[in-house]
């Protein structure tokens, strides 16, 4: 572990139980994030990247899910660390939306259709910045009745809020105004031109791009240290995609947020991510700085992914796909999951699970091609063709 880290995921394991069996959706995933950096977590559907992302906020439902192993350490301001997976509920809640936020793939589904977007963004302020809101409204915490607090938190009962609204009209108005101001400024930060009008709208009245801006505003409202972005542009039109990504990048530069960017689209990684981790069937197969990994991928899966991206100069009729399909993860055998599709697969690949092997300069890959027979204590004939033998280098 380096000394300047923000989040450290160590040997994370997540299982899902179903009538058909138990599948290990995330198996021994470890990575680290430093403040201000962007790490892209890349892989195809079902590789476990979403589950990993949700685990960071401990959002995986237990049952049917289960955190089978590992820890997720978050570094606090005073230097202490909190293990998100084992911390009490209250602590985790104080982290969610506050120190670590998440934006979701489909903003249409991630926003409550029954509430205006303004109210939904206000919830974050009410939950994590209550004192600041009360102060701005000029209401002292001691004087604020429980109902006023609840109004600030957007969860006062209908009757109670009407009654208190009459009795303590000044205070309630001040609180509402303070909240609205915060929400409006948060929305304006994401480039929304008329935040007051948007605030009063319902999600279905807004366009996809607008909804995503609202979600981003909501996530960044409390200036989190880490933003987990789960495929934030997949559900958007291509033209809007670029704009939203630029927006996120801009906000990151201004606020210094670290971003964990989940995507299946390798082409976005180069532009937006400092580092990238490639996942396959629940495991990280390769990790390193973006330019290193993209320029000289060291894992057969990564190589296949990159080769499959059609480029302008790809001759006609030569689209490459990786043969085979992702293995079932229910009662999966203890071996390299990619072996069934890998051109280099050999005996040892089908018997052992590869671990991350350092390749120099922060680049690592989990592939036996980078190990020697002596390290693993197996016969040389069981080993796959070494990477060095085919002239693939790390730089």
């Amino acid at each position: 572990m380096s000394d300047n880290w923000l989040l450290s995921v160590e040997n994370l394991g997540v299982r899902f139980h179903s009538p058909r069996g138990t599948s290990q959706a995330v198996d021994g995933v470890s990575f680290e994030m430093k403040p201000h950096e962007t790490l892209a977590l890349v892989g195809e559907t079902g590789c476990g990247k979403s589950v990993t992302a949700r685990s960071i906020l401990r959002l995986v439902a237990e049952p049917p899910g289960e955190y089978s192993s590992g820890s997720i350490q978050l570094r606090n301001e005073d230097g202490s660390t909190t293990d998100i997976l084992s911390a009490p509920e209250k602590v985790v809640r104080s982290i969610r939306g506050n120190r670590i936020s998440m934006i979701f793939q489909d903003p249409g589904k991630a926003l409550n259709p029954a509430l205006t977007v303004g109210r939904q963004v206000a919830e974050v302020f009410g939950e994590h910045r209550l004192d600041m809101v009360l102060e701005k409204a000029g209401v002292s915490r001691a004087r604020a009745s429980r109902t006023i607090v609840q109004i600030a938190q957007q969860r006062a009962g209908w009757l109670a809020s009407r009654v208190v609204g009459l009795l303590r009209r000044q205070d309630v108005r001040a609180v509402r105004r303070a909240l609205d101001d915060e929400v409006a400024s948060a929305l304006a930060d994401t480039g929304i031109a008329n935040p007051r009008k948007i605030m009063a709208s319902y999600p279905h009245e807004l366009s996809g791009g607008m909804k995503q801006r609202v979600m981003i505003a909501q996530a960044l409202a409390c200036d989190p240290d880490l933003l987990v972005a789960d495929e934030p542009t997949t559900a958007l039109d291509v033209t809007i995609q670029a704009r939203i990504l630029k927006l996120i990048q801009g906000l990151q530069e201004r606020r210094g947020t670290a971003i964990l960017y989940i995507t299946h689209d390798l082409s976005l990684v180069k532009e937006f991510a400092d580092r990238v981790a490639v996942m396959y069937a629940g495991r990280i197969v390769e990790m390193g700085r973006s330019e290193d990994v993209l320029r000289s991928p060291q894992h057969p899966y990564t190589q296949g992914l990159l080769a499959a991206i059609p480029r302008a100069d790809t001759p006609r009729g030569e689209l490459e796909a990786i043969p085979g399909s992702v293995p079932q993860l229910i009662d999966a055998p203890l071996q390299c999951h990619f072996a069934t599709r890998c051109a280099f697969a050999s005996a040892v690949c089908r018997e052992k699970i590869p671990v991350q092997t350092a390749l120099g300069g922060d680049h690592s890959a989990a592939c036996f091609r980078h190990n020697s027979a002596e390290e693993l204590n197996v016969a040389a004939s069981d080993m796959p063709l070494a990477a060095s033998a085919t002239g693939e280098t790390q730089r």
Partner: protein
Amino acid sequence: MQVRDYLIRRLILLPFIMLGVSVIVFTLTRFTGSPVGIYATPNMTPDEVAALEARYLLDQPIPVQYAAWLGGLLRGDLGWSGVSVAPVTEVIGDKITATLELAIAAGLIAIMAGVALGTIAGVRRNRGPDHAARLFSILGASTPTFWFGLLLLVPFYLWLDWFPLGRSTTEIFAGIDHPTGLYTIDAILAGSPEALWDAVRHLILPAVVLGFGAMAIIVRMMRSSMVEAMSEEYVDAARAKGLPERVVIRRHARRNAFVPTTTVIGLSFGFLLQGSVAVELIFRWPGLGQWVTSAILSGDQATIMAYVLITAAIFMVVNLAVDIAYAYLDRRVVLGG
């Protein structure tokens, strides 16, 4: 706005449908003995009866008779109620308020208990409370209201004597004014705790029995819409904001789950109206249901016909009101024909 147009169309159709209902009721009256039997009082002379027959144009073709009958209806002449020994229009007001009070009480019980149980069942899906709720719900749909009423009567009335039959204790009832006709509200308005207690004591058991069937469907609907709502992405997103689970369930999931449940609430009002027939009979509740059951036993056609017209009217108005409420709640609703 599409929704508004639909509702306006329903509103306009309403009188026509009522007209249709009146045609059906008129047809039914032609099956009874004398077509003017509903207007004849017991002590009329044959001359008076003949005069009635002339007035209602019994020698004219049927459509004309219908027009005459309808005319009488709109003038407020609903006939003579044999069981009440009075013109229908005189006594029907009290009957309506009595049944409404019972139905509203039963409805409130059904909604509150139903929503609460359904929510718990949906949140704790496939665990203890859920199975209990589903068992409850299917039993509720299979149990005849009249039998359930008798079943509860025995312990609570016979053995424990906690709840009396009927609607009120005569002296206490007579002791206060009745501006609304709803005993409980009148008691509150009169500021009389004694009357309020009397009203509630009489109301509870029949309201619970009546509400039971409706509660069953509401639990079922609420449960399934909660299950759906809890699996929506915005529920996870709300958790990701750091909101306590209680708030997530109440403010995010339940608020959305409640919307489809309102359609069921409209439906269950129909059950309440129908159930009131047996419940009023068993608990001696002086409402429309008891009125019509006596009418059936004594062949009092006027009462029966008036009963059909009134319940149909109430039923349609309530359904429309519920649909308006639904449209208000679900801003995305697109209603079609």
